[in-house]
């Protein structure tokens, strides 16, 4: 057991994968000698040589494009995009090739390829360094999109992603790189497509992932004072979505809030809200609310705290879940208390962004 940081866990996942499988290759901008601007690839060049961990010219489309070619031929490339917004130049390669080549070739060409993208804010960085781009990737069939929120998941999910047969967009919450846990590695690799209940609760389900999981857990603690027993579900796998875990939770609690840093409009939270509503309609006492980034570009560092979802915003959203109506699966009567569901227009809420 030792104190391991999120970045170190990612590093260990790559190192162990590279030791185990000579096909694994790591490259990108500054990932070699420097070890990456977040030190996530630290020491890999020293251990595995310049052939297996190296710096490339600054050309993100070229990085992903060459990785596709490598993966076509049996390598397992793990490439780093230096920051979220700097993955956009590679968008065509990601959407038109990485996501589609398997389908194009009727499954005969598979692409075991991991695109690591540090994402999200709260690290005091200037423009373009705090985007949350998960919505773009999650909406692209053919991609598997995952994001860890704990040190253990950082390790196990990255290992599982490298072992995965298809392209994985691996989103690393920047604000967590320096978070630590006391543990020993390796941890057992879990299935890549499972959400996890981080905290059990009876009254409401708080759905979160990556950068917002800690905020959600803090909200759950704070909400005790408000009288709400909050269940926190860390989605982990954005594509595919773990309907089983989420549906079970929301059917139990009867209410849900989803949170992320990305702008709310047409964001990933919309999918969560829509599908939870589809699967749990008759269990829901209130609409699924979203607490997300505002629908504006990410602000400058000195103002980012006004933009990001906070415990306060989450508590406000929880308080707006129409608590006068209370039936859930756990309740004795299967019938709603009819009078408790008022139809006044002003009770319907907009986005709590």
């Amino acid at each position, binding site marked *: 057991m030792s104190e391991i940081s999120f970045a170190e866990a990612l590093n260990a996942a790559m190192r162990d994968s590279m*030791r*185990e*499988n*000579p*096909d694994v*290759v790591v490259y990108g901008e500054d990932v070699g000698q420097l070890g990456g601007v977040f030190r996530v690839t630290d020491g890999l060049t020293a251990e595995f040589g310049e*052939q*297996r961990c190296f710096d*490339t*010219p600054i*050309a993100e*489309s*070229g990085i*992903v*494009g*060459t*990785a*596709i*070619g*490598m*993966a*076509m*031929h*049996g*390598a397992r*490339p793990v490439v780093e995009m230096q920051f979220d917004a700097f993955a956009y*130049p590679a968008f*065509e*390669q990601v959407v*038109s*090739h990485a996501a*589609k*080549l*398997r*389908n*194009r*070739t*009727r*499954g*005969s*060409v*598979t692409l*075991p390829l991991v695109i690591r993208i540090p994402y999200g804010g709260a690290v005091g960085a200037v423009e373009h360094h705090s985007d949350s781009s998960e919505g773009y990737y999650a909406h692209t*069939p*053919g991609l*598997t999109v995952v994001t860890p929120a704990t040190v253990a998941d950082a390790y196990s999910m990255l290992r599982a992603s490298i*072992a995965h*047969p*298809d392209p994985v967009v691996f989103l690393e919450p920047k604000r967590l790189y320096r978070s630590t846990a006391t543990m020993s590695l390796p941890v057992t690799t879990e299935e890549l*497509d499972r959400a996890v209940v981080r905290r059990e609760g009876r009254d409401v389900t708080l759905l979160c992932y990556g950068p917002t999981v800690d905020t959600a857990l803090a909200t759950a603690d704070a909400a005790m004072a408000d009288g709400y027993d909050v269940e926190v579900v860390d989605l982990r796998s954005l*594509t*595919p*979505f773990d*309907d*089983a875990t989420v549906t079970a939770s929301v059917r139990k609690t009867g209410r849900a809030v989803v949170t992320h840093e990305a702008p709310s409009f047409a964001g990933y939270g919309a999918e969560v809200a829509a599908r939870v509503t589809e699967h749990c309609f008759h269990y829901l006492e209130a609409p699924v609310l979203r607490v997300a980034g505002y629908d504006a570009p990410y602000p400058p560092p000195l103002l980012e705290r006004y933009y990001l979802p906070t415990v306060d915003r989450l508590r406000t959203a929880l308080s707006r879940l129409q608590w006068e109506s209370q039936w859930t699966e756990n309740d004795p009567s299967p019938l709603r208390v009819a009078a408790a569901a008022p139809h006044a227009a002003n009770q319907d809420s907009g986005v709590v962004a």
Partner: protein
Amino acid sequence: MDLRQLLANQLSRVWRYSWTLLGDEAHIQDMKRNTATSGVTVPPALEPLRLVDSQGGRVSTPPLPVPELDTLGALHRAMVIGRRFDRQASALARQGRLAVYPSSFGQEACQVGGVLALAEQDWLFPTYRDTVSLVTRGVDPVQALTLLRGDWHSGYDAHAHRCAPQCTPLATNASHAVGLTYAARQKRHQASVPAQASTAPSNSADPAEVEADTAALVLMGDGATSEGDAHEAYNFAAMWNAPVVFLIQNNQWAISVPVRKQSRAPTLAHKAMGYGIRGLHVDGNDAAAVYAAVSQALTEARAGEGPTIIEARTYRMDPHTNADAPQRYREPSDVERWQNHDPIDRLESLLRAEGQLDDAGRADLDATAEKLATRVREHMAQPDELDPNEILAHTYTHPSAMLREQQANLAAEIGEARA
């Protein structure tokens, strides 16, 4: 500027260069380092390299090694078959039996010359324009038309033919080729160095390839060179010293846009200068020259001398696709002018003049080509047996529960429609 002036300039600005002229030790050292790692600095020829002229005569001082007679015969043969295939496909497109067909009529020397220069273990990266290159590579002509018929996005086994699916987003397959050769080199390296104990299964390629140096040929159009992806791929190839040949088929047009609106460089091969790699400018209607240039570039690449950009000057005789309206942007006389430079006629004249081909030989060849065309025609006359369930079958190796539900819904719908 006249020739003399250019030359003087050239001399004074560049070639007079010597280390001792430099004042600063620091600069000298940096520059030595730079120049040691950097590549070729000679601009490609403005006149395209040519081995056989339009009349079928051999040029007097060949600028490239001239292929043997049997290679010339093979080039001719493949071009005749390729063209018959192309004409057949165009006809099918006009009849509505293909979704679309981008013809390479007139560009046979490029597609055939490039492909025949490849070794068994090499990979080909073709575009939508290059169906003739597929047939030349040995892909079944019916499978080669899968994309353009609209049955599926690609119809042949990429691994079996070492031929990537035809690429539509311009210039995007160029970096794939660079990456693929990197992986191949890694495999070879792994095979030579006893591996550490490996627990994970390695998708290793077959042993033959592990031994031979896998090179790649990327086909791209003149228009595609304007894309940022072309630049990034050329540069990655240069930096990785990748055994990749980029064959630019400059067919003078990108749909309706003439090549002079893509670049004002003297030749497209001049781009090589910016990457420190070799650039060659060849006559793209001279199959012998294309073959020789690609062969030479591949040989150099295998010898560790890195990538080459080859511009092959040719002409797109047909519309961009059957859906195009070339009368809107070019004169029929332009096309006619290029008929005098037909790549097949040229090589046929040579072969006949040198006693390698006669009417009987040509008739045999036509019969073979016709058989292939007939097979394609007959196949296309029948409706294909397509399974609509396939549209959800191949997205992931392990479809999610959501996708499986969608598959079930689709299957039910298809079942109902059939019932």
